């Protein structure tokens, strides 16, 4: 028995977004409800069939109960694992397991937040660190960026090119929040928050909700939409507090990535489009290295050369990412929705031609927990 047994056993047949950017007056549950309704409509599946519920947020201690009540869903299987923003990518693996075991037949993974217009509760702070007043989560990522610069000569310009690339993609996405052009100089000139990260190295704070629907592969063949299969998925964690991270320049993606690729029977060169959880510019560098798309220390030069921007060899965050499209606090669900969109060929102006394999990578906590998922169009089965 191995993780590979789950390869292609479940598929995404519905995806929905709601409340992107600003949703004044709405609650996080309101836009989550809209996203779920949109995803079910997209799938052509009635809500009454949903018997698997996977959700997490920063607002509710009992998220599956609160969300189940709001949606009017009484699931047979509910899972509210919260490891931060990667949770929803991780949920896909558990949904696939529950589907394969027959514990449920239709699984919904969903999230909503009105972090911009409604505010949101601050998560509990580690007692041994908070007394030194790091500006979290920015300072934690600043520690990683500073160390990466120290060890590998990565520059602020390299980091800035991640934000510039995100804006170029966002310009092609009508749902993206920040679509104006941005230059490296703009990023460097923006207000410093926690050295070496300035304002434009940080993700947006927006409202937004997303949902995806999963079923077993046999049912997916008859779905309304072209099914997108879960080929591989793996999660790894190393710490909660940044001072306990074993190496500030190596994230748990160095473990989740290889395990996900092994499960999928794929390698980095097989990936056509990447969705990398970009809460901060440094994230993209760390994940490109840890996931095997370049050697450790070389991602700065890679992104500065335009590889991840439109027209580059390695299209990253085609929706504009957390830096330019949407980031309501937990971005993971949006990596799945955009990966699915690309593999359906439904990306419009931002479509990566012929995309058959997407890598969706979620980050949780303070680089603490990482989930790598590999998604495939029917053509790769």
């Amino acid at each position, binding site marked *: 028995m191995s993780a590979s047994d789950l390869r292609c056993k479940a598929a995404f047949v519905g995806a929905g977004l709601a409340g992107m950017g600003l949703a004044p007056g709405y609650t996080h549950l309101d836009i989550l409800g809209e996203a779920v309704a949109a995803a079910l409509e997209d799938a052509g599946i009635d809500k009454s069939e949903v018997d698997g519920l996977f959700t997490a947020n920063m607002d509710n201690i009992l998220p599956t109960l609160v969300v189940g009540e709001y949606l009017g869903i009484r699931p047979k299987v509910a899972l509210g694992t919260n490891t931060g923003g990667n949770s929803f990518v991780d949920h896909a693996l558990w949904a696939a397991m529950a589907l394969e075991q027959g514990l449920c037949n239709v699984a919904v993974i969903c999230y909503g937040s009105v972090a911009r217009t409604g505010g949101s509760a601050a998560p509990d702070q580690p007692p041994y660190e908070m007394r*030194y*007043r*790091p*500006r979290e989560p920015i300072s934690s990522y*600043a520690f990683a960026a500073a160390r990466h610069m120290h060890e590998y000569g990565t520059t602020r310009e390299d980091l800035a090119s991640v934000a510039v690339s995100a804006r170029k993609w966002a310009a092609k996405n009508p749902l993206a929040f920040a679509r104006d052009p941005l230059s490296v100089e703009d990023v460097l000139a923006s207000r410093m928050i*926690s*050295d070496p990260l300035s304002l434009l190295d940080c993700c947006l704070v927006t409202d937004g909700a997303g949902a995806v629907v999963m079923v077993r592969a046999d049912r997916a063949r008859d779905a309304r939409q072209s099914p997108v299969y879960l080929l591989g998925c793996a999660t790894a964690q190393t710490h909660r507090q940044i*001072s*306990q991270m074993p190496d500030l320049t190596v994230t748990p993606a160095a473990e989740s990535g290889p395990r996900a690729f092994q499960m999928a029977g794929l390698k980095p060169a097989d990936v056509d489009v990447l969705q990398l959880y970009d809460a901060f510019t440094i994230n993209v560098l760390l994940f490109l290295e840890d996931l095997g798309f370049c050697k450790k220390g070389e991602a700065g030069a890679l992104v500065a050369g335009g590889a991840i921007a439109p027209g580059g060899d390695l299209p990253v965050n085609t929706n504009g990412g957390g830096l330019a499209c949407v980031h309501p606090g937990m971005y993971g669900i949006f990596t799945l929705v955009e990966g699915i969109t690309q593999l359906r060929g439904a990306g419009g102006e931002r479509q990566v031609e012929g995309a058959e394999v997407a890598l969706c990578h979620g980050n949780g906590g303070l680089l603490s927990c990482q989930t790598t998922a590999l998604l495939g169009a029917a053509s790769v089965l």
Partner: protein
Amino acid sequence: MAPPTPSPDAPGVKFQAFLAEGSFSLQVCDGCGTQIFFPRTLCPSCGSRALTWKKASGEGTVYSTTTVRQKPERGGDYNVSIVELAEGARMMSRVEGVEPAAVTIGMAVTAVIATDDAGPLVVFRPAEGGGA
């Protein structure tokens, strides 16, 4: 009803009690020798529950550092660092006695016990004669 008195043997209580006596002490695992921060009830390395409190050397090196920017009227910029202790543990702290921008990765630092609103806490200063 008054809340029960905290046990003096609880790891967090003990850590603070040492600091209040002017001693920066941490647990060291009897089984594998790992110096442990933050205080806890088992060794995160080998799992042993046999942990002995030992005074830390207080010597360390800045592993990473950031300047948190803050308006002057709110107290101005300040340093936050992750310090690797000579015996191995890492902890968040700050380096005092130099401008925040002068704190660099690799700088040798020495622990001192300061106080804030919550009581004594460990901060660091550039090591005597240690340069950077």
